[in-house]
């Protein structure tokens, strides 16, 4: 039992020593071992590593893809001096830890400062030769890829790889936005007027078509009706002619009688007569001579 005391002491001592001699490099990190401030070794594999205590120290670097996002959008001029506000974000990572440390003293702030300068310069170049429409839609990919290549080329020298450059916002500045709004309004007004007037035209067309159809329908019906009537009249005439031609003279007499009867039918018809007609021949003369003489 007494032997345990030393065991503890040994353990504690081991832990103390181990903590100053051993260090772990995470999956996500690379490490540089410095000896009196000089880069002695670069560790790129994760795991347990050894260093000399006191004379060596270790610095760890995050090797994941890092993001740089502009806090404030940058203002660029496009072709025709139209300004745009651009907000981009950059994905970058350290590929060469030693170079990175030597060039920017391993300071992420310093690295992003360089990054920002390079990117904004490249963006300015790309935007200057393009119209707003190009950078917003047509050549967005090209712009992003070219800026990435340029920046990548530049930043390789500090051990940084530019994984991706993305244009996030490409917006018009406030004063330009207002004029865009005015234009959008005018455009909508045009559309609205067009819709209304085509609606009216369409309506008129439908009405006119309906009117035409009505006329046609009525006219055709009238034509057909007249045909039918004419047919009836013709048949009637044929019937009359056939019957009446048997004795035309009698027909004239008979028909006249008929006509008299139907013509003078009411009290309102006033006949002014001379008593010398055939009908009145017996009126003045029972012999019937008066009318007969005439």
């Amino acid at each position: 039992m007494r032997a345990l005391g030393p065991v503890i002491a040994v353990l504690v001592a081991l832990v103390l020593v181990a903590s100053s001699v051993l260090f772990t490099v995470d999956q996500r990190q690379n490490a540089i071992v410095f000896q009196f401030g000089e880069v002695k070794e670069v560790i790129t594999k994760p795991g347990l590593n050894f260093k000399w205590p006191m004379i060596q120290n270790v610095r760890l670097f995050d090797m994941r893809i890092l993001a740089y996002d502009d806090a404030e959008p940058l203002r660029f001029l496009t072709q025709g001096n139209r300004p745009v506000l651009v907000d981009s974000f950059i994905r970058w990572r350290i590929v060469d830890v030693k170079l990175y440390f030597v060039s920017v003293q391993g300071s992420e702030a310093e690295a992003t400062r360089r990054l920002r300068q390079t990117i904004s310069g490249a963006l300015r170049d790309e935007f200057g030769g393009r119209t707003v429409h190009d950078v917003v839609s047509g050549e967005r990919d090209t712009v992003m890829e070219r800026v990435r290549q340029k920046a990548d080329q530049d930043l390789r020298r500090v051990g940084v790889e530019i994984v991706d450059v993305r244009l996030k916002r490409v917006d018009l500045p406030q004063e330009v936005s207002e004029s865009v709004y005015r234009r959008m309004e005018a455009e909508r007004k045009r559309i609205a007027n067009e819709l209304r007037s085509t609606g009216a035209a369409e309506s008129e067309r439908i009405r006119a078509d309906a009117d035409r159809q009505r006329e046609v329908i009525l006219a055709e019906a009238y034509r057909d009706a007249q045909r039918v009537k004419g047919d009836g009249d013709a048949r009637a005439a044929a019937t009359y002619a056939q019957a009446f031609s048997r004795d035309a003279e009698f027909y004239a007499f008979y028909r006249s009688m008929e006509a008299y009867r139907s013509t003078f039918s009411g009290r309102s018809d006033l006949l002014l007569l001379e008593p010398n007609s055939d009908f009145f021949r017996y009126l003045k003369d029972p012999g019937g001579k008066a009318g007969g003489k005439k």
Partner: protein
Amino acid sequence: MSLNDPNWGRGSRGPGGNQGPPDLDELWRNFNRKLNDLFGGRRGGGGDVRPPAPSGRALGGGAGVLVALVLAIWLASGFYVVDAASRGVVLTFGRYSEQTDPGLRWRMPFPIQSHEIVNMAQVRTLEVGYRNNVKTKVLKESLMLTDDENIVDLQFAVQYVVTDAQAWLFHNRRPEEVAMQTAEASMREIIGKSKMDSILYEGQDNIANQAQVLMQKILDSYKTGIDLSRVTIQNAQPPEQVQAAFDDAVKAGQDRERQKNEGQAYANDVIPRARGAAARLTQEAEGYKARVVANAEGEASRFRQVLAEYSKAPAITRERIYIETLQSVLSSTSKILVDTRASGNLLYLPLDKLMQQSGAGGLTESQASQRAPDAALPTDPGPRSRDSLRGRERVER
């Protein structure tokens, strides 16, 4: 020294049963003495004035228990729980060694192994252009420029799950932010290639799909381990400044439909009516024809019948018809019998007055037809001379 601290803490809490409540000073001194034993007095600490404690043996036993306990606690610190929705990732000296399933798990304790837990089942949501509620807009995120250089106000949500825990942990710093920025950039890229009208009205699903494809592509290129499940456009509308104009345009579209419908309504009113009128004309014509033909046939037939009788006795029949006709004519009309030859041109006939009278009198037709023969009779037998009639007017009612 720092490593000693847990020992102190635990020592004071734990196995005090052997020796009563431990005194910190005393323990410290004991410890130093033991170190001295070990290193041959090299580290003779200050305050180590007491001789070896008489309780050394007891202390040795206590230390054994202490060591065992510390060891046990240290080992126990390797336990961790992975809940059902998650996976654990174990790192050995910082190097990935395994992925563990849900349950109570054990790894080698710090500093040998460490673990991270990633929730793989939770559907994570990104809200772009708004927070919590579509009405609380973030205009900086939501206003976007379209292909036709209009500005649209768009809110969308992205849902994703983490499908690759290692990628999620190891390739990107703050992957949630990466996802957010990627979502925004992709949507803006797609909107930048779309026309205002298709964004606002019909093309929203299509845009969401395109954005999802692009987002997934970018996220894959970063090896984020993210799998997008859905991109939904929550709301797309013109900016407030021009909302009224857009609403009016939509209204205009409806006006147009309304006008068309009104025109159609008119057509639907007019054409069937015209058809009806046409049908009436046709029917009337048919009716007319039938009537005319029937009349003709009837009259022809009557004429033939009369003619048949007439031809048997023409003179008398003719006379009879003539007289009958004139009788019926004269009996039903008003008449004035004037001997014009005698009266010359001095005859005064107030015709309009006569007409009035006859019109007024005509209202009792039955009476008229009754009286007509009576009225006619006195004239017939009246053996009056022509002179008596001269200048007189007779009005037969």
